[in-house]
């Protein structure tokens, strides 16, 4: 077995020198990376502009009146009209959109129609909550997916693989909302070890905050676990059976080195691609999970803004979640550059 090879490859001068020469040789190829980042960053404003136009138009065609929503059903028509005039909701759609856009790009996001508070305060506060919950879910999701995928790859086509596959596929078939309710019944009602309300009065105690966020984080993570674990499993199996793996083994690398330098890196390439998309979704907030657990995240806020036709809050909220998603994709591209040399070569060309 090659796994018993004692040769300390990574400590030999030859090895160090070889890596140095390789990087030196690749320097020119790396010059394409800033261009890639610049290109992606330039695309972001255009994407957000298109999204903002779509949102403004969609809100316009949905029934409802901002003034009526703000003042309630018992306000008179005159009161509603006065309110709309005071808040700039008169005139053509184009005029109102340009007025909003001008304010948004100059940092004046306006006041929420329904809450009467600065939209920036509401959104950035909620964004922080969503980032926290998304990060917590991410921390639970990634190791779980890698572990389960690795276990499946190790026992490929054997009982553990089949059991995990069936379990994860079953989980994937159940809606997030139902999983959340089941978790609430088990952990909050029956066992009473975790709270139902993820936004209770926990003061500054981070442990209590973590405790309150655990069920929504697990619910979020479970929603993505099946596909991600499957991706890890597939990547790992493909890497283990690939030519470069065989070559690495035959040239005498230790098992640890083979896995670290060849298997893991290649196995994670498709996984990282998926993680980038998931990261954007997780950090942008999940309306379903936030609603179920009463978690004050950005997703739930955007849903409320949509229901109440709070265009100020909705536009700003969508811009921020869009930005988060686009930055997450950019981060994914950068990760690709780090772990996959082929991408660097392509960009350099």
């Amino acid at each position, binding site marked *: 077995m090659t796994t018993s090879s004692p040769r300390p490859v990574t400590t030999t001068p030859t090895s160090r020198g070889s890596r140095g020469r390789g990087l030196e040789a690749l320097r020119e190829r790396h010059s394409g990376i800033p261009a890639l980042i610049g290109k992606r960053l330039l695309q972001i404003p255009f994407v957000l502009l298109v999204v903002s136009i779509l949102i403004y138009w969609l809100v316009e065609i949905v*029934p*409802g*009146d901002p003034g*009526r929503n*703000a*003042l*309630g*059903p*018992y*306000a*008179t*028509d005159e009161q509603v*009209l006065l*309110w709309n005039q005071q808040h700039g909701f008169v005139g053509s759609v184009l005029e109102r959109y340009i007025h909003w856009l001008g304010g948004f790009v100059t940092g004046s996001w306006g006041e929420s129609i329904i*809450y*009467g*508070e600065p939209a920036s305060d*509401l959104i950035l506060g909620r964004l922080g909550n969503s980032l926290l919950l998304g990060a917590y879910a991410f*921390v*639970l999701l990634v*190791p779980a997916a890698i*572990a*389960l995928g*690795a*276990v499946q790859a*190790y026992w490929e086509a054997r009982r553990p693989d089949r059991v995990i596959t069936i379990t994860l596929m079953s989980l994937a078939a159940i809606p997030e909302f139902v999983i959340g*309710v089941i978790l*609430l019944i088990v952990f*909050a*009602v029956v066992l*009473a070890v*975790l*709270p*139902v*309300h993820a*936004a*209770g*009065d*926990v003061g500054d*105690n981070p*442990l*209590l905050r*973590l*405790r309150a966020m*655990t069920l929504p984080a*697990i619910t979020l993570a479970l929603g993505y676990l099946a596909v991600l674990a499957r991706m890890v499993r597939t990547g*790992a199996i493909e890497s*283990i059976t690939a030519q470069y793996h065989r070559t690495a083994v035959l040239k005498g690398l230790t*098992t640890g080195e083979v896995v670290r330098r060849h*298997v*893991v890196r290649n196995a994670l390439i498709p996984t990282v691609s998926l993680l980038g998309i998931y990261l954007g979704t997780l950090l942008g907030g999940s309306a379903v999970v936030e*609603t*179920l657990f*009463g978690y*004050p995240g950005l997703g*739930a*806020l955007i*849903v*409320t803004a949509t*229901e109440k036709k709070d265009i100020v809050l909705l536009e700003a909220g969508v811009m921020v979640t869009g930005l988060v998603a686009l930055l997450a994709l950019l981060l994914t591209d950068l990760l690709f550059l780090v772990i996959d040399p082929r991408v660097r070569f392509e960009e350099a060309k």
Partner: protein
Amino acid sequence: MAPPLARSLAVAALALLTIVPLAACSPAADAATTDDVYRIGILDPGSDIDPLTVADYNAQLIAGLVGEGLISLNAEGELESRLATDWTASDDGLTWTITVRDGALFNDGSPVTAADVVATFQAITADDSVSAGKSAFDGILASVAEGTDAATVDFTLVRPFSDFPRLLTGTNTAILPAGYEPGNWLKNPIGAGQFVLDSYTVGESAVYSKNPDYWNADAIKVDGVELKVYADVQAKLLAFQAGELDRIEATSDTVSALDVSQYNTITAGYNKFDGIFLNTSVAPFNDPTVREALAWAIDRQGLVDNVYNGTADVANDVLYFPNYPVQPEGLEQREQNLDKVAELLDGRTISFQITTDNQLYAEVLQQQLSAVPGFDVELNVLTSEQYYAGDNSVTPWLNAPLSITNWAVRGPSQYIGLIFQTGADWNASHYSNPTLEAASVAFDSATDDAERQDLVNQIATIQYDDLAVIVPTFSRAELLQDKRVKGEFAGPLDFYTGYSFAGVSIED
């Protein structure tokens, strides 16, 4: 092959997955102390919170716990003294003089004065006011001014109105300091009520502590109140089951999901009615026989059982809540009578649509009517935003042929002014009857009991016969409450009862 690494990865990841949630569940992370805090689940009001303008129930509660009005109602519908210690009418019934409680303080330590009362009601009734409370005083209150001494306020009326003190229990009537600027209440949540708002986080919670300067502080036995925002009814139910909330509405959904014997069932008087508003200006309900046939086709007890889970009383199409001091006499109680329906319809089939934001009510009513020969009913269930969208000339709730809308408890004359009066803003029935309006004005002026009874009978008979609005039920506020809560609420937690916590305590 990579067995050692796969195994290591699996072990490390599973350890992390186990440790993080377990750490979160550790005993050190037990919930914050909420022993003497009364916890209520609410929906996100989705609106600004200002005592002068709040219209949504949840927003009213957020502001109402801090505020204090002049007068409130108890569960029996009787007037109770709050910031007003006395109220008397002049001989001609055109002026009501209110005496402001001596020694009452706002939560910033300043005294509540007659000038504050005057300023509050001037703000509510101002021409540019967007207060939901304004409508209650339209056509009734002419002016408000300080009285002959520093402790009294004179309300001058347009016409005599014997139920005027009841109007002072209305929405948005909590007293605010003179000079109060609307729109900044959350930054400085001023009020003279039972609690002080310690924190409010949009979409999350509102936390209150007992106001030590409250004029009746000795009667407030809880240390505070916490309102927790739930966007999902299922989550709210689970939170109640888990002991995170102290009360939940006793709806059919909640009662069927809970072991009711583990909780106290509390009833705190009537809180609303769901009216079936028939547009009398268009077919098919411009035909009185169709309106009457519909009224006789409804299984009212079925609505009580299936919509309210028993927390309502059968009503008789007249707007006198059972706890109103004067009750109509001599009207036959309507109940489902298919013979009368057949007689009135005379072989016709009446097709119409039920428009509402109350899905359960609409579905139950549709099922009932579908079983009655002569009715062909479709549903048009809207979200609240859609139902109340648009101005009065187009909004569904005021223009559909048949709409179902809930109304909070008000005085009978208020309902006539708002719902039945010719051209009234919320006259969803497009109804007009000068005789009814004249009788209502006469009732408001009358002080003799026999005369008042006679006028109530006249008004009720017109409502019963004309059927601009079918009133099948009066809804009671029935709740399930955690057994750690002792004592009884004076009434529903609503503006007309002043959100009173007097006599309620928590014993763990």
